[in-house]
């Protein structure tokens, strides 16, 4: 198991190198001259040349790249122009908000998609199968920002069940003591029920928005792979041996059907992390996505590049975790690896 993990970790290295090269290239192809841009509107040719020198832009590209990698290794992603704060600290302080939202969205979509997919496969051709298909197709077709606004209109404006979309907590509730930065977790641990209720209420709509968007691939894959497994010999044998339907479906079929579903989780995370940016904008969620969008609109590029890099590293790590999980669930992968 450890050897497999080690081998898998080695395959991450070229991917990470690729990611760093791409983000480096993105910093170097800024429209126009970065030095002119950093010098501001009142720049003289002399000050631009100075800035170019201090940024190291007069050096050859490989040397600039080495310097960039060195900065990364020291955890330096540059400073935001508009706030002057280092990008790394800003991303660190905002990451828990995004992570909490993403995981809540993922859990919700798993909670809906898995039963839906299993039922659709077990009762193939029934109304629940058709529901599954419609939900899956509609789910990917709905622009995630539009779903979010629709939910806000129905549950906040019309019904008044949900709080206003103004971030992680309303103005009257104070944040729980910081432990992990996950409000739900922190408030539970410290027994702060008021904060828990507030944070939970704020989280429901954005999490649902993300969940609806990402449940389609999971439901589709669950259905397809359950269908394949249910038609296989070992399920027939299990049935012929007189096991009851529940045992066959959950103990035998489900565990085997989960493997392709876990593989699709990689794609689902790509969806979720991207959709996160849009959902954060709709719900004024103070995560790294809305940080990047604000910076983007002010042509403040360091935060955007830091954000892209952070997201890519996060995504690579998630894919790694998925592979490890795959090995845990399927012993065959371990043997072969």
């Amino acid at each position, binding site marked *: 198991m450890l050897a497999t993990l080690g081998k898998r970790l080695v395959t991450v290295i*070229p*991917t*990470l190198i*690729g*990611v760093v*090269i*791409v*983000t480096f*290239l*993105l*910093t170097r*192809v*800024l*429209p126009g001259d970065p030095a002119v841009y950093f010098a501001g509107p009142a720049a003289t040719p002399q000050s631009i040349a100075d800035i170019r020198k201090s940024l190291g832009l007069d050096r050859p590209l490989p040397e600039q790249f080495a310097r960039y990698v060195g900065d990364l290794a020291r955890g330096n992603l540059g400073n935001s122009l508009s706030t002057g704060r280092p990008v790394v600290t800003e991303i660190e302080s905002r990451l828990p908000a995004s992570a909490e939202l993403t995981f809540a969205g993922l859990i919700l979509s798993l909670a809906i998609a898995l039963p839906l997919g299993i039922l659709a496969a077990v009762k193939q051709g029934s109304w629940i199968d058709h529901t599954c298909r419609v939900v899956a*197709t*509609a789910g*990917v*077709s*709905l*622009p*995630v*920002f*539009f779903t979010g*606004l*629709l939910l*806000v*209109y129905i549950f*906040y*404006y019309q019904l008044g069940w949900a709080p*206003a*979309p103004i971030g992680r907590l309303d103005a009257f509730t104070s944040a729980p003591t910081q432990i992990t930065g996950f409000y739900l977790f922190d408030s539970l641990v410290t027994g702060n029920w008021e904060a828990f209720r507030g944070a939970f209420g704020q989280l429901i709509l954005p999490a649902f928005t993300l969940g609806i968007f990402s449940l389609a691939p999971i439901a*589709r894959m669950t*259905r*397809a792979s359950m269908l394949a497994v249910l038609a296989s010999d070992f399920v027939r044998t299990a049935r012929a041996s007189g096991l009851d339907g529940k045992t066959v479906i959950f103990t035998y079929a489900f565990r085997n059907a989960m493997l392709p579903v876990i593989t699709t989780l990689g794609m689902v*995370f*790509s*969806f*979720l*992390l*991207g*959709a996160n*940016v*849009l959902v954060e*904008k*709709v719900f004024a969620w103070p995560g790294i996505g809305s940080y*990047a*969008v604000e910076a*983007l*609109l002010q042509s403040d*590029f360091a935060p*955007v*590049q830091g*954000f*892209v890099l952070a*997201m*890519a590293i996060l*995504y*690579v790590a998630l894919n790694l975790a998925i592979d490890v999980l795959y090995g845990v669930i399927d012993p065959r992968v371990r043997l072969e690896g």
Partner: protein
Amino acid sequence: MNESASIIHQAAEVKAKPSSNSMLRHARYVVSENPVTGFAFALFLLIALCALLGPHIVPYDPLASGAATLAPPSRAHWFGTDQTGRDIFSRVVVATRLDFVIAVSSVVLVFIMGGLAGIASGFFGGWTDRIVGRISDTIMAFPLFVLAMGIVAALGNTVTNIVLATAIINFPLYVRVARAEANVRREAGFVQAARLSGNSDFRILLMHILPNIMPIMMVQISLTMGYAILNAAGLSFIGLGVRPPTPEWGIMVAEGAGNIISGEWWIALFPGAALMLAVFCFNLLGDGLRDLVDPQRRT
């Protein structure tokens, strides 16, 4: 072209005739079997019509402010009006062309880039394959929408760059399909015949392999069209690419977002619904086309 090749060609043509006929029959069968595909096709025609004739058939100028601001849907303004009194129906219809053009051009671009790279990598293998594979792996290492944001931020905030970014993030999908299909046909009889008749590798790729994998690629195009529209609208929703007065679905939803919490739902709803319908239409069409081309993968 020498004799043996022309004989093979003739043979292919003779064979192609009944197969295209049965293709039509199969198409009719699929449509009758699955009326949803027929519906999607009708919807597609409507969208294409709006994109073609949009600016000529709308009742109001999409950019002109009117006296009635924030008016709910009525007989005069079917979809209501926005903050400056512009007619939302006209704006939604006129926006079709821009969204359609963005999606189509990005899909055409990625078809050329990804399709050719994929065929070459499946056909030649070796270094070509490794380089193309490395490029698509690197693209896939990013969450795709995030990468698109980064590309537009770096290259500049224009519609052209939105097209380019959307094409780039779809690149690996096209490479994968084209590579697999070309790889299977690398040693096929017709390829060997073409090679024997003295065709260059390049010519075999373009004239023999590409036409053969076209049907599968068409399905891919239709499936990614919806995603391309969503992606472009998402980028313009966060304020990239299209500039405010221009009618475009993503930006119109963004303009109406603030009014949702005060109850003016129509500003965001109609452009959002148009967006949803367009994406829905392309996804259904893609599924239908796949049934047509590749009946085994029907789900």
